[in-house]
């Protein structure tokens, strides 16, 4: 799949934005600036961007507890997201959701989701809406290697096949469901075969390679858009941080994180590919880097200064209207 230059620059900008958003969030959490539980996507940026570059705002995504990357890749307002992490009333969810529940319905983001495998059934419903209305929109659920052992994931995959809906199940294998390796938690040797046994094709990609994810996701999404029912994407790539910020990561092998950052980094891989093809110069990528750093600085500055919610907002938005 060839990508025009503006598309290459956009994809790189999105991945870099996610990277710097997460690294800055990590620093601010360690400084005690951001409350609650936060799960960082650093390292997996190519997965979200490789998928979402195929989607429009009319297409839906359902994300996970590790959702910042999916939301940015789908077009969520970065400053509104940062304000949400801070819990400001100007955050995307008015400070009601926080890191685990970022959503932007104007961009087709049906929410990050704090329940592992809570999202796949919801994506089947969003895809069902497209099928009933007879349009070509699709719905994507992102979920991790931990989600594939949940019953809701099995139910959603089977239901998507039975109802022939345009749902795409993106399974991001970062090797660890919390602190447990996939080699322990998935009982079979071939997760791709187990998933394909539900009755839809699964396309596999190296999650450190944007172009590989983009190609695999393109096939899956084209399959669903064409009315052939659901499809899957498997992308393998480790996360650079713990399950949550503060996780001591006792499960890591010696040199594992260093190897990930050194030899399996999607941004380095992207730059190396551009250097070899000459499609985008390193100066142009440097310029993107500078713009992203300025955006993240602006987001943090604004989030720190943003208004705080007040106690009278506690009961706001439970219902649209409630009784008489």
């Amino acid at each position: 799949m060839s990508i025009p230059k503006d598309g290459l620059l956009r994809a790189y900008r999105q991945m870099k934005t996610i990277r710097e958003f997460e690294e800055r969030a990590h620093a601010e959490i360690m400084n005690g600036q951001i409350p609650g539980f936060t799960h960082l996507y650093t390292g997996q940026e190519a997965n979200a961007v490789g998928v979402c570059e195929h989607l429009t705002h009319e297409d839906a995504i359902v994300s996970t507890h590790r959702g910042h990357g999916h939301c940015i890749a789908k077009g969520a307002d970065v400053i509104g997201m940062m304000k949400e992490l801070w819990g400001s009333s100007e955050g995307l969810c008015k400070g009601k959701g926080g890191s685990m529940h970022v959503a932007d319905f104007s961009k087709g983001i049906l929410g990050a989701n704090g329940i592992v495998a809570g999202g796949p059934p919801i994506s089947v419903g969003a895809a069902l809406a497209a099928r009933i209305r007879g349009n070509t929109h699709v719905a994507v659920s992102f979920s991790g290697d931990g989600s594939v052992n949940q019953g809701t994931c099995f139910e959603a995959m089977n239901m998507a096949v039975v109802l022939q809906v345009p749902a795409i199940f993106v399974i991001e294998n970062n090797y660890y469901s919390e602190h447990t390796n996939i080699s322990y938690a998935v009982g079979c040797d071939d997760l791709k075969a187990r998933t394909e046994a539900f009755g839809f094709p699964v396309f596999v990609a190296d999650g450190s390679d944007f172009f590989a994810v983009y190609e695999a996701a393109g096939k899956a999404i084209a399959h669903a858009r064409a009315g052939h029912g659901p499809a899957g994407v498997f992308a393998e790539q480790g996360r650079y941080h713990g399950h949550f910020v503060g996780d001591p990561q006792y499960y890591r092998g010696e040199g594992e994180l260093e190897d990930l950052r050194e030899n399996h980094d999607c941004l380095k891989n992207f730059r190396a590919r551009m250097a070899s093809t000459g499609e985008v110069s390193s100066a142009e990528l440097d310029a993107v880097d500078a713009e992203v750093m300025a955006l993240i600085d602006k987001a943090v500055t604004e989030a720190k200064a943003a208004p705080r919610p007040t106690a009278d907002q506690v009961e706001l938005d439970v219902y649209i209207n409630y009784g008489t």
Partner: protein
Amino acid sequence: MPVKTMRDAINEALHQAMAADDSVFVIGEDVAGCMGSRGKPGSVGGVFGVTSGIYNKFGPLRCLDTPISESAIVGAAAGAALMGMRPVAEIMFADFIGVCMDQIVNQMGKFRYMFGGKTTCPAVIRFASGGGFSAAAQHSQSMYQVMTSFPGLKVVIPSNAYDAKGLMLQAIAEDDPVLFFEPKALYQTSCEVPAEMYTIPFGKAAIVREGDDCTVVAFGQMVGRAAAAIDALAEEGITCDLIDPRTSSPLDTASILESVEATGRLVVVDESPPRCGLTADIAALAADRAFHSLKGPIKQVCAPHSPTPFAPELEAAYLPSVEKIIAAIRATMA
């Protein structure tokens, strides 16, 4: 005015809502029936017949049979509702909430709040609830009292065919998620039901009987038994208000308190077990907000703290009876 059963009244509401609005569809196990078999598709219409005829009239894209996958059914309804559809999903027996609790409570019930009020989830989930069929411990629970405790969900319990139709049309029109509990013992009970579309607002109780001596609040299947108890006592000159809240969330607290302030006595009746229950909730409401009006103890009539038994004699002893309700009313006056 035509006389219809509660089953037919809900069925009529679904037909009319679907004819009026293309975004309304039904989904669930056997809502059509016979899919993939030698039987004729659409010939089941739900195990209780509530979705009868919908497949034949509206076709397979608006009457969707599913595998036995309750989490995926609720999730499909929730996701479609986020995209602006108005699904009416069927979970068959209310007891099966146990296998789809997350999608109801953590997902659809919380979308609006945790996403900062920026979305709506106009989904209706239907359940057949309650005892009376010797259906034993896993097919007889009411469950609505459990679901009433979760913010973000609205909870409906009709007690007659007229209310069932109006409440169902209101449920479909609501932009908040609605859990609609149909007491299965009442599916075959009939009353006059207008042919045209009409709605009954949520949070507005029906005053079923009016009297001076005691306030009786009852839900669903228990409304008829409470009415029978009150009618029996009227022969002795004891008269009672009977309040059917119709929705437990929102709850018409104003009508309950107004009545308790007038009568000074309160009996609350429900077929669920007693602990952390609806009857305790309403007793607490009166104790908290109408204490100085009370002339006697508040009485709760509910099932014991036990699973629902199978044997007919045991289930009859388990469910609140007319006699137990009469005894409770007398106890408030002793």
